[in-house]
């Protein structure tokens, strides 16, 4: 069996003074796989993403990313590990409004030498990598690159966020409800673009959403409630 990209085992987590929120006996995400994880709000999905990003530490059990046990790393090293290997796309307002589109895309390369190196290796320069990714995601107009990020439409902003998550080829892209602000047509188009880019970069995609209609597009889909033994009975 190949090494899993994410491997959780016997994971338990509770916020101090609260009932256990997560109790996940086992979970794997394979390299290159696209996974749809369904989770309504309040199901612990944000907490799970925080654990995967190394921002929170589990009470018990292990989280391995690319075979690396996160708990063994110091806080600083976890931060570095996260940016080296994970790209994030959030719901909305993902971008720093006061930077240009290009600067927003290049942000991770300023904090991760590894991703800057990979971007340069593949595209010649970080600037070139940003331009290429944006073009692949349908933002071809070079004039767009210099514009302030908040002058773009929401749909365009989400594509900029996707380019930022993908620059420097992280092994994992985590998308947390990235399409909730988009209308139905734009949603599917966005996901197709994201798939294509992940495939090209060889990245796995962990896509968290409550919008079941998107699920069939993915290699595999899971519900956090099935995974999590601590889940309260799903609301009807």
């Amino acid at each position, binding site marked *: 069996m190949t090494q899993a990209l994410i491997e959780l085992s016997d994971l338990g987590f509770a916020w101090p003074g609260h009932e256990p929120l997560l109790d996940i006996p086992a979970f794997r995400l394979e390299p290159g796989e696209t996974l749809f994880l369904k989770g309504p709000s309040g199901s612990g999905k*944000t907490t799970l*993403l*925080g654990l995967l*990003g190394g*921002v*929170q530490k589990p009470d018990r059990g292990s989280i391995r990313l690319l075979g690396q046990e996160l708990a063994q790393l110091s806080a*600083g090293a976890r*931060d*570095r590990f*996260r*940016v*080296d290997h994970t790209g*994030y796309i*959030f*719901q*909305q*307002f*993902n*971008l*720093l*409004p*006061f*930077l240009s589109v290009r600067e927003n895309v290049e*942000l*991770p390369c*300023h*904090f*991760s030498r590894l991703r800057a190196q990979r971007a340069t290796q593949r595209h010649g320069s970080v600037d070139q990598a940003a331009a290429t990714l944006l073009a692949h995601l349908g933002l071809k107009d070079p004039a767009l690159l210099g514009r302030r990020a908040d002058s773009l439409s929401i749909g365009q902003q989400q594509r900029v966020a996707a380019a*930022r998550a993908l620059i420097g080829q992280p092994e994992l892209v985590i998308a*947390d409800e990235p399409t909730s602000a988009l209308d139905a047509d734009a949603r599917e188009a966005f996901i197709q673009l994201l798939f294509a880019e992940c495939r090209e970069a060889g990245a796995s995609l962990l896509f968290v959403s409550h919008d079941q209609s998107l699920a069939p597009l993915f290699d595999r889909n899971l519900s956090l409630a099935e995974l999590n033994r601590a889940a309260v009975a799903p609301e009807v």
Partner: protein
Amino acid sequence: MYLLRLALASLANRRFTAFLTAFAIALSVCLLLAVERVRTEARASFASTISGTDLIVGARSGSVNLLLYSVFRIGNATNNIRWDSFEHFANNKQVKWAIPISLGDSHRGYRVMGTTEAYFEHYQYGRQQHLELADGRPFATDPFEVVLGAEVAEALHYKLGDKLVLAHGVATVSLVKHDDKPFTVVGILKRTGTPVDRTLHISLGGMEAIHIDWHNGVPAQGAGRISADQARNMDLTPTAITAFMLGLNSKISTFALQREINEFRGEPMMAILPGVALQELWSLMGTAEKALFVISLFVVLTGLIGMLTAILTSLNERRREMAILRSVGARPWHVASLLVLEAFALALAGSVSGLALLYIGIAAAQGYVQANYGLYLPLSLPSTYEWTLLGGILCAALLMGTVPAWRAYRQSLSDGLSIRL
């Protein structure tokens, strides 16, 4: 470097608040530096009110009092000294020159000083500068000639040849005037920035002449009156003067002569060293000067606290910004450094514009201040002391920046990567 770029871009995004904050700091920095410059220059100009004079001699009183009336034309002598006492010391072999001065009259609020030609020859101020005439000549043998200080001439619009009447006493509004003996303006001195500018100089003979028919402080009436022409033909050697200044052949003899004067058996007198008395007087005013400095320091502190408030208030709205930075790999200390850099950038912008404001202000007010207060404010580069002050302000800003930095650090640890809407 990249963090600085981010901090500046974020500030530019809040440019209105940032501008106001920096402007408040600029004003406070400008105030502090202006107060410092005026303080330094006032002290220097004060110290240079009189120079080259080794001893000032007057009736026995306090040294500050003697300095005030003899040099600053403030207050009055408690007693006169006799003319023969002056002659006794003027002829001392240690003495190079002696200037007698006689005070007590005024002209429209400006003091009149009776003296001799020696005054124009030997009196010095600033860096050993002699008095110079802008126009005309010193008073000569005629007793009714007057030489005006620059400010007197300018404020009262006198020119050569004008006649003026002196008033008895030093009150601004004087009821008793020497109107039977008018004086003619024969000379106007160049501006010195010292009390000389506010003085009317007449000869001791003139001073004697206008009081020649006075008895017990009131003018004679009717037949007892002596006209100006009659006075010209009389012996106008004074019987008493107010004080005198001495220049010595050798500085070494200063203390010996001072002692000799203080122990003079003829009448009670005292001799003071002008430099020492100036120091004493300045230390009296030192409190007000220090208070001014402390106040301007507090104004700077207020400016910096304004900055702190602005940054702290922005923190909450910027949680998302911090979370985004965290998600692209910024570590909590990066987030904290951003805020320290922001505080530093604001303080730097404030200090630089404060400095610019100061120079604009000095350039604009230089002439006015010199003309009205006799204070020359140089447009010189900041002194080491001023650089130290600016450095101190920047350090204080850095220190203050650690407060929002610490809060943002804590916030970004607890918020993590996502911030709920």
